[in-house]
């Protein structure tokens, strides 16, 4: 019961936050003055001068889609190089514990790709592999800027959609804004202030925030235990707000130092959903139709709630294997019952089920319980969240621009069915737009299915596979889905890094898995970014037609149903066979293989 209340409360808080934060972001990216301008304005100007952003009399010089895309790639490539160097050199940089070595090159390749692409897939254990300097100056920085890249790409795309065409000879024709200006604003005005407040709340709840290094305790049994400490709370807030998900500790949000209380658990979910949800309102405002923002929000919310309910029910019910083994899964006084394997008892079934739905429909990938211990049907939920191309809220920015690709496809099919050349906000969707939307929708299934086939079908891939049977298949599929959608959560089992001694002595990466995953993360991040920017560039040059009764409305409940139908159908048709062989089998049989 309290589980459903928590879901209802979460939806209510997100609904309330969406127009506020969405409107704020619309003002920030329009360059308007906001509350924080007096404080941050000088910093912003300083940064932009340092970056040598060119200005003309109308403000910073705009970029067309190609220039914007080039800037995204340039910035991300530089970030990648810095992060790679940091992780490889951490043992000679200050702040590393004396027995901590450099990360192996292949795991570093995977990790650098992971954090620059906002994925935060972790083939390593944070506290045993990375120094606090690596975490703070490497990963946390990427948590900010990779999230900012996602947001600004979306803003550029929406600018293209909202553009009124106009005079082809004008300097602003086809402009999507200026990447560097947007990037600075996203970090300064959106991510930093909210993370700052969030970190304070986390500290108030008991999350760790110290540069004091590790501490040694004497245990009751008389032994000693080394506790790794670090600046956790500050990294935690942006981990969630930026839909990053990479935990300071290996067990992520199940760790009391990261996620101390039921309240911090709830706050975590709000932080994760805040920006992806609010961007729908930003979109609505920027295209001058707030209903449009709510329509997209509605489609996302319906799918999110459905998945959360399924996961909750599945975990409450338990698995056929548990029933077959005669384990009690019914609730009784003092226990919720259900499948409690791998659950953090502080959060129980509902707190875990909801948290994991939130972090897998968004591309956060933070977890507060063991995903590999989910029931078959329960495990299907995070896979579905990712298999839908991470558009159910999704990553900051990336969720909505991915969703807009599906909107284009839905508009095309729906437009045909009402007998008009399909239009999005009055702009005709023609061969070029469909080509781009299909490219954008295709890359993900192609990547994930190919990766899974290599993981389960080649000797190089099978090395990483710890388990056999349907569980082993699910683990390989999950690793591909997670890296292939920039999510970052893991079903465990499928590994790219082996650490025999709890530190890096004797540790080795599994090169094939590291490279395969690293390349996949880079492809699924930057290929669609270029595709949506090209789409926006194409739409920016089109003159919108006024809407009339014969035009397909994209802000109606009917369209929301069509949009959901397209997303579900594309996802289902792509992954149905793979889902059957993994999670579905486990929900059909009690056999453990």
């Amino acid at each position, binding site marked *: 019961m309290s589980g459903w209340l928590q879901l209802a409360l979460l939806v209510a808080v997100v609904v309330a936050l969406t127009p506020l934060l969405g409107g704020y972001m619309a003002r920030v990216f329009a360059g308007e003055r906001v509350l924080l301008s007096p404080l941050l304005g000088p910093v912003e100007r300083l940064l932009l001068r340092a970056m040598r952003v060119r200005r003309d009399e109308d403000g910073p010089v705009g970029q067309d889609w190609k220039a914007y895309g080039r800037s995204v790639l340039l910035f991300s490539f530089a970030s990648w190089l810095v992060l790679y160097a940091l992780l490889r050199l951490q043992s000679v940089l200050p702040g590393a514990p004396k027995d901590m070595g450099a990360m192996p090159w292949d795991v570093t390749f995977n990790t650098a790709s992971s954090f620059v692409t906002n994925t935060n897939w972790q083939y390593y254990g944070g506290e045993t592999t990375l120094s606090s300097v690596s975490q703070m100056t490497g990963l946390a920085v990427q948590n900010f800027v990779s999230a900012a890249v996602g947001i600004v790409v979306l803003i550029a795309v929406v600018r293209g959609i909202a553009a009124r065409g106009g005079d082809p000879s004008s300097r602003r024709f086809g402009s999507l804004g200026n990447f560097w200006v947007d990037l600075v604003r996203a970090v300064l005005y959106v991510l930093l202030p909210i993370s700052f407040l969030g970190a304070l709340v986390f500290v108030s709840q008991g999350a760790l925030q110290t540069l004091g290094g590790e501490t040694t305790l004497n245990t009751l049994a008389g032994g000693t235990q080394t506790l790794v400490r670090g600046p956790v709370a500050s990294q935690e807030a942006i981990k969630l707000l930026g839909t990053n998900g990479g935990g300071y500790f290996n067990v992520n949000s199940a760790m009391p130092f990261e996620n101390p209380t039921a309240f911090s658990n709830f706050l975590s979910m709000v932080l994760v959903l805040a920006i992806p949800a609010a961007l729908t309102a930003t979109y609505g405002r920027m295209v001058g139709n707030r209903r449009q923002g709510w329509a997209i929000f509605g489609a996302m919310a319906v799918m999110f709630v459905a998945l959360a309910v399924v996961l909750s029910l599945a975990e409450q019910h338990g698995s*056929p294997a548990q029933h*077959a083994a005669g384990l009690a899964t019914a609730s009784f006084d003092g226990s919720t019952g259900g499948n409690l394997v791998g659950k953090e008892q502080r959060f129980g079934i509902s707190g875990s089920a909801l948290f994991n739905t939130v972090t897998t429909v968004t591309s956060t990938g933070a977890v507060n319980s063991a995903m590999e211990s989910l029931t078959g049907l329960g495990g299907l939920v995070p896979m579905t969240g990712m298999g839908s191309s991470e558009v159910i809220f999704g990553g900051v920015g990336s969720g909505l621009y991915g969703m807009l690709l599906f909107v284009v*496809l839905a508009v*095309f099919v*729906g*437009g*045909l*069915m*009402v*007998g*008009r*050349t399909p239009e999005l906000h009055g702009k005709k*969707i*023609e*061969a070029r*737009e*469909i*080509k781009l939307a*299909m*490219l954008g929708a*295709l890359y993900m*299934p*192609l990547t994930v*299915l*190919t990766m*899974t*086939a290599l993981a*389960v*079908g080649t000797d190089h891939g099978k090395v990483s596979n710890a388990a056999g*049977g*349907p569980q*082993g*298949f699910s683990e390989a599929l999950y690793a591909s889905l997670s890296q292939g959608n920039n999510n970052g959560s893991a079903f465990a089992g499928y590994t790219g890094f082996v650490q025999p001694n709890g530190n890096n002595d004797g540790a080795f990466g599994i090169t094939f898995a590291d490279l395969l995953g690293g390349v996949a993360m880079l492809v699924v991040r930057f290929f669609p970014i270029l595709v949506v920017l090209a789409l926006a560039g194409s739409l920016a040059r089109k*003159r*919108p*037609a006024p809407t*009339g*009764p*014969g*035009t*397909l*409305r994209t802000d109606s409940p*009917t*369209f929301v149903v*069509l949009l959901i*139908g397209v997303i579900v*159908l594309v996802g*289902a*048709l*792509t992954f*149905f*066979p*793979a889902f*059957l*062989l993994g999670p579905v*089998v486990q929900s059909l*049989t*009690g*056999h453990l*293989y």
Partner: protein
Amino acid sequence: MTEGPDTATAAPEGRRRSEARLLDPEILRPALVQSLVKLDPRVQVRNPVMFVVELGAVVTTGIWIAQATGLSANDGALGAGGGNGGQPAWFAFVVALWLWLTVVFANVAEALAEGRGKAQADALRAMRTETTARLKDGGEKAAGDLRPGDVVVVDAGEVIPGDGTVVEGIASVDESAITGESAPVIREAGGDRSAVTGGTRVLSDRILVEITQEPGGSFLDRMIALVEGAARRKTPNEVALGILLAGLSIVFLVVTVTLRPFVDFAGSTVSTTTLIALLVALIPTTIGALLSAIGIAGMDRLVRRNVLALSGRAVEASGDVDVLLLDKTGTITLGNRQAAAFLPMPGVGEEELAHVAALASVADETPEGRSIVTLARESFAFDPDDATRGGHLEFVPFTAQTRMSGVDVEDLQGAVRSVRKGAGDAVIRWVEESGSGGVPEGLRAALDHVAGEGGTPLAVADGGRVLGVVYLKDVVKPGMRERFDRLRAMGIRTIMVTGDNRLTAAKIGEEAGVDDVLAEATPERKLALIKEQQEGGRLVAMTGDGTNDAPALAQADVGVAMNTGTQAAREAGNMVDLDSDPTKLIEIVEVGKQLLITRGALTTFSIANDIAKYFAILPAIFAGTWSTTHPTDPAPLASSAVGAAEGPLARLNLMDLGTPESAIISAIVFNAIVIPLLVPIALRGVRYRPLGANALLRRNMLVYGLGGIVAPFVGIKAIDLVVHGVLGA
């Protein structure tokens, strides 16, 4: 432009005829032959979806031949262990057969659509007899060698050798060969009726025609190419849809290719034949097979309505039209004004006014004049013979100077009585000049009143006395308001274009139910209006016939030229209406919308079908995966499905299909026969209802989306009952 509306009654008859001919053996037989000719891979490669099917057919045929000749005992994975292994030898044969049939069915659909146009093209070709043209300056030339600028002489009884403009003379011409209209039409030099078409016959008189066509580029040639589909190029929307379908095919290709390692990992095998069957079942073959048939049939439907679209792009654009410009005269109103009321001055009886007005009109043969006489006769028993008995009538015709007409009646005593009707100020001047009587008080008010109502006032005077005003009214054609309501429901605004003053135009516009009017229109203002609408992102359609319409026709996104119009207009527009019916635009728009709806509906249907196909084929493939004999396993729901080695996924055989082989075969048989079953929808088009976009979307999503999910479950089960139950597969 007086003929036209009548043809509306002829059209439904024509449509009935075309439907009856859907399975005409004369079209079906060559279509079957064509369907085999089109198996040529060079033809198929233009349609990626069907090309994949053909490749699949080739590979499975190879597998069957290899098995039958003993070159290979199986197709690689066959026979290795449980699950899908050990498929019987006939399986590859049956799959190959149905894949070939899938391609053939698609070809039949396309050939049927082309065949319907071909019959019409043959009739047209028969007209293109080789005539010899007589040049004006003596000499002769074969009709096929005529070049633009040649002037030819055509006498009564001769066939006009090529498209051109009448430069001298007037003639009645039989154009039934291209329009189907048997009544001859007048063609004359100058004005808006100067265009003649090669192949038509002069019935009377003699005309000089200046040829305007290049050799081989005549109207007739283009028409033949169009109805045959030879000139068909993919329209922009077809290209976009083609990309969508190709993209989906690529996804499904990856889904099937990656399935083999998945199944291997799960401890079973899947044969190449089965994977190909799955691929063909998943890719959107239904819409892929019918796509070009839908396009050809759309053009054909226009031809059947006597409209020639000069490009498929124009037909598609007509579905997107936002604004429709319609000429008032002849389109919205009957060509002529009609007397509607007599408004007498104080002290004058209505009957007296009626009689005098009618007397002034007895000799007036204009439609307005006749309508005054008619109204007077019907309302006040006016008898022209009675009125003029015993007098001598002298007709005073209308001139641009007097702007009046009437009669002078000389009675037996020799007294002359002058009655006049005409423009208000002209009659007032006439009365004032004659000096007798004066202008009654209420006259100005009555004249203004009529003008304010959108009518044309005619003052009537008898000698020096003004008796009253005749109210001439523009009569809106019956049914116009309903048509405009229908257009509005489609999302199309209508703008009436007229040379009338604003007040009159606004009144008539209101009466007809148009959304806006352009008053005091000139060709320049018309062009400016189109450009202004286009600036706002709207698509504009218009009809026109005169040479001065040509710039506007060319500027409009959809310009429908009347066949009776000038050659310039016919060249400028992108469609020609052979019936010269300006309201035909409504039907053209409907055909354009129908074209897109049919594509969208069948695409949705095709993709929605995949769910059921998955439920038929995947349990068959996965039956042997993760097999176990664990004692706690629940009993399979389907008792018959697979042998002892069946795994938990065999329970997903929701349709309870007999065997894995019959399940796969049933799915591809359904996939194939749904193509011919949907041919009637493809050729006739999904019915368009002007419901508004939202309601239309809901309806089509329900019928083709939900229907597309449910229908194959029923169909595949039914086929399985035959394949497994009767044939024993």
